[in-house]
């Protein structure tokens, strides 16, 4: 893989490069209440499951509304179990958070594009806000498995919103945190930690996921510093399979290709950040 994907916006990677997809029953086997409104849920799939970091599942749960909801795979465990990080935002997440252990969901995945491991001479620097941390657990597991380290910048409103901090430390990552109320780490936004992290990393490769305001700020700093940057974009999704066209983001390829809407479920959720036309994005700060 190359540092900067040649194809603008990495449109529709050949499915041959990605793990097979299936709609499988998955049983909730454990619940870890991370904060008053967030849980880490562990599921066991009925069949085999391969997932690359950054990919997501479309999950259907009884009482959770008509449409499935997208969740980044948080971690994939050796026995084929996977975890999801869920924060209550509506009827779908609420149904999942109220599902009793032993209950079943339908999980369609793995879907979408992936975070690339950086080339050997670059150091991963991750910037995540709130539940945007989810895809980086599996990512950092892979980074650690390749015998490398990275820097994880984690932001949230208050200390309880800095989910899974300890997991990253176990992977040997250099974890730095920020909270808007000052209850943990830097008092303020996580992006304030970015300059120092980039300097410490030497030759950094940026990865980000979280609120649009944060992503935009990270993208500005990355562009200014000439640092490669992959971003996971979350949009309201209908199908996750590229058919409803509900989850699009406007792409303006720097290579000069045509501007167009790309599907965050298929050409994304992970994009090269320079591809996204942030100024035309309908989800401002």
């Amino acid at each position: 893989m190359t540092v900067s994907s040649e194809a603008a916006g990495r449109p529709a990677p050949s499915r041959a490069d990605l793990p097979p997809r299936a709609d499988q029953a998955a049983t909730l086997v454990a619940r870890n209440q991370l904060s008053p409104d967030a849980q880490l849920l562990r599921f066991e799939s009925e069949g085999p499951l391969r997932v690359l970091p950054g990919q997501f599942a479309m999950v259907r749960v009884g009482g959770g509304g008509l449409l499935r909801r997208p969740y980044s795979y948080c971690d994939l465990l050796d026995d084929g179990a996977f975890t999801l990080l869920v924060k209550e935002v509506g009827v779908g997440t609420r149904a999942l958070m109220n599902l009793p252990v032993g209950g079943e969901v339908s999980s369609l995945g793995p879907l979408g594009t992936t975070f690339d491991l950086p080339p050997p001479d670059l150091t991963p620097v991750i910037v995540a806000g709130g539940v945007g941390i989810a895809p980086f657990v599996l990512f950092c597991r892979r980074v650690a498995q390749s015998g490398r380290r990275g820097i994880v910048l984690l932001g949230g409103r208050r200390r309880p919103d800095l989910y899974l901090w300890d997991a990253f430390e176990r992977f040997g990552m250099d974890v730095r945190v920020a909270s808007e109320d000052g209850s943990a780490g830097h008092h303020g936004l996580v992006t304030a930690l970015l300059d120092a992290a980039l300097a410490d990393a030497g030759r950094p490769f940026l990865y980000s996921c979280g609120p649009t305001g944060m992503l935009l700020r990270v993208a500005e700093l990355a562009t200014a510093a000439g640092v490669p940057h992959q971003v996971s974009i979350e949009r309201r999704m209908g199908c996750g399979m590229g058919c409803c066209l509900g989850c699009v983001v406007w792409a303006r390829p720097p290579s000069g290709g045509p501007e167009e809407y790309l599907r965050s479920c298929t050409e994304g959720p992970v994009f090269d950040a320079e591809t996204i036309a942030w100024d035309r994005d309908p989800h401002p700060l």
Partner: protein
Amino acid sequence: MAEEKSATVDMGVEVAGLRLPTPLIAASGTFGYGDEYREVADYECIGAISVKGLYLEPREGCPPPRIWETPSGMLNAIGLQEVGIRRFLAEKLPAVRALGKIVIANICGSSLEEYGELAKILDQAEGVSAIEVNISCPNVAEGGIEFGCDPDMAARATEVVRRGTRLPVIPKLSPSASDMAAVARRVAEAGADAVSLINTIPAMAVDVETRRPRLANVVGGLSGPAVRPIAVRMVWEVARGSRLPVIGMGGIANAEDALEFLLVGAAAVQIGTMNFVDPGVWRRTFDGLAAYCRRHEVAAVRDLTGTMRSGTAG
């Protein structure tokens, strides 16, 4: 093959001159260009695929947000983002043809001329078996009024498509017309071979905290199980009130839902929104229809069309 799993039931239907191996058609706008679901849906249960609506030129579509969930339904305002007819024929059609499925091209026009031009292009294309005419498009020449709301305009759009092609022509009716059967009769006179209905119902939702519409386009189309009782009624009216074969759709999630449409007069049905919810809908609906036919000793699924009885008692 699907037929082997239900050896005693003939699942084939014929509609608008098309012989379909099953009565289940993928609805335009919910099944992409046809091959997106190949890993997760049982394609052997699919009788035909109506691909995403095509204009002459590519369209970027509406800005997001484009979708919103409602009680048992879904709002969408995609604005027909699509690649245009030429790229469809060159890049998309080969992939879906490779799946061995009957392909119905769904076309949209901003003018009568565009409908006619699309029909002529498709008439020359290999591998397209019928044309579904989306008449819920705004007519630019008439100030953006939908072709489908007015029986005359619906008939004129049908007529130009009819003149442009020998393929079966299937206007897709808008539920905004107050007399659906009247529209069906007019498009029949204009040369339609069948009609499909219902297209989505114009609807909207508001984020009361921001006081802004949930969709960038303000109004979108409502689909899903919420609209099914409305769709069943309209199919019943059109099947009784015109002589055209009817392809029914609206929130079909399983065999029982599909049967409602068949019993009130549909010759075939389309599955739309439920593709998003559950790709297993194809296998479940197909198997359920076959099991129903066996349980009710019906030899062929086509024999069910229009067999609703009158009265509710004994």
